[in-house]
């Protein structure tokens, strides 16, 4: 149970980082931390204590099999996270070109 709690703490750290930091790069890191926490949560769902890889072979019965579906899901989720991260970093570079700063309190052309 404590593992799930630590996973939640990791998620909250990421959320805090996104909400409270002023530096764009730190916000991006916060988003990555949140994504990793969610991925970790998926792995924990599928895990069995002393489990083994879900490989079927002839005349052998596999006990305590680890659930493979969450592992496959996070592969997709990692790819999506990577594409979002790449886009974010590209935009952060462009923002630095235009505003000459990474501080979001100084990047305020849009309001209302």
């Amino acid at each position: 149970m404590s593992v799930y709690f630590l996973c939640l703490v990791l998620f909250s750290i990421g959320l805090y980082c996104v909400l409270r930091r002023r530096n764009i790069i730190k916000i991006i890191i916060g988003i990555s931390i949140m994504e990793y926490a969610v991925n970790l949560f998926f792995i924990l769902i599928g895990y069995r204590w002393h489990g083994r890889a879900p490989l079927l072979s002839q005349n052998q019965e596999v006990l305590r099999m680890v659930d493979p579906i969450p592992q496959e899901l996070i592969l997709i989720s990692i790819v999506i996270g990577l594409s979002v991260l790449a886009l974010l970093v590209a935009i952060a570079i462009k923002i630095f070109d235009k505003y000459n700063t990474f501080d979001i309190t100084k990047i305020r052309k849009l309001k209302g």
Partner: protein
Amino acid sequence: MLVLFFIISLAAAFLIAMFGRKSKLFCHLTSILATLSLFLLSLYALYLVNKSGVIVYNIGGWIPPLGICLVLDGFSAFMLLVLNFISFIVAIYALAYMEKYTDKYRFYCLFMCMITGMNGVILAGDIFNLFVCLEIASVASYALVAFGTEAEELEAAFKYIVMGAIAASFILLGIGLLYAYTSTLNMADISLAIAHKGFNTVILLVSVLFIAGFGTKSALVPFHGWLPDAHSSAPAAVSAMLSGVLIKVLGIYSLVRIFFNIFGVNQIILMILAILGAISILVGAILAIGQWDLKRLLAYSSISQIGYVILSLSLATPLGILGGLFHLFNHSVFKSLLFLNSGAIEYATGCRNLKEMGGLKEKMPITANTSWIASLSISGIPPFSGFWSKLLIIIACVQANRIGLALIAVAGSIITLAYFMKVQKVIFYGKLNPAFDKIKEVPVSMRLAMIVLAVLCLLGGILFIPRILVYFLKPAVSVLLLGTNYAFTVLGGVL
């Protein structure tokens, strides 16, 4: 047949990315042909649904609870038609509008990717595919918002991505919890498992995560921060897509599908949705009045109209659902038209600030007239389509004994009328700014797109004729009314 919705749009994106750089004509031709064929296909899908009910396609021949399946029912067919119609019109409009941007083939490639994602969300039969397609559409729209790469656009895109990424994390966390609880990903199967185990705190937690996640995607009021920036910064063709279909497909469709068909109708959730909808109507409308940037005003107005749809759907009565879906269709028509108008004005004059405009009616008659029609329609003036859907919503509120909600809907409508009258007066009447002495009406393709949408606004009331209504909206309404029967219709022969 359902796979064609993916294949056509994805193939078009791929072909444009491969060969579009050389020839502009190729880009235009491919995008128009692809969106046109998708539109025709979705008409055919509506016909099929009316003829033979729900269609389930199992990818690779795996039987539903195991493999990936695509589901076409009344609600999906209706949403497909709205999505593909608007994207076809926007593709026509973009022919002339995108001339001023460089790298057009990238625009078309992203545009087709966005359509792929949205088609995927509508057809997905399992909840993880819904998430993946939602992310495809979102990532494409993030890139499209930043397409101009000016300072404001980048800032808006950054804000949009950060909020979108947080929303995606919430949704994924919800999906994880749901999988842990029911140990399946197929939506119909989840619905059965929940019906078996009953509604308890786990489902409540998942519901809250989904409301936060999909609520951000559909810009309900506490989560609406990204929308005014993103919609006002994107190119007009993209804003029309974002406001016309993206927030509906990613937000409302997913919310409604999950809460009506998977979790089953639950009073607490409906109450939360009704309150969010009512707040959205008022806050969106009040914030819109004070705006002097045309596209920003339209964006706030979108928040307010989305509030109507959610409010009406949350009543969960037959009339409420009918009104909500009808308003969803009408809103996607007239809001796209208004955004296209704003694009035309920006194209001709090069500015969006209402204070600098005036007297454009003489110079741009078609834009002015279509914009009039859209404004009257959105504020609910009788012969136009918006009136009928708002009337239905208000009657449904009264019928469900929610007089307060009905009053909020009426008040929102009056405020809408107020700010659209301001827009019309300031842009098209009054004295012409001398700087705009030489402007001309916009090119043919933009005019054509605007006229088609305006005619549809006028004809919107016709959908009210019972025979058309039965054909067009009834299948969608009955899917939502039947609620968790969805599971039995999808799993059908398997059980």
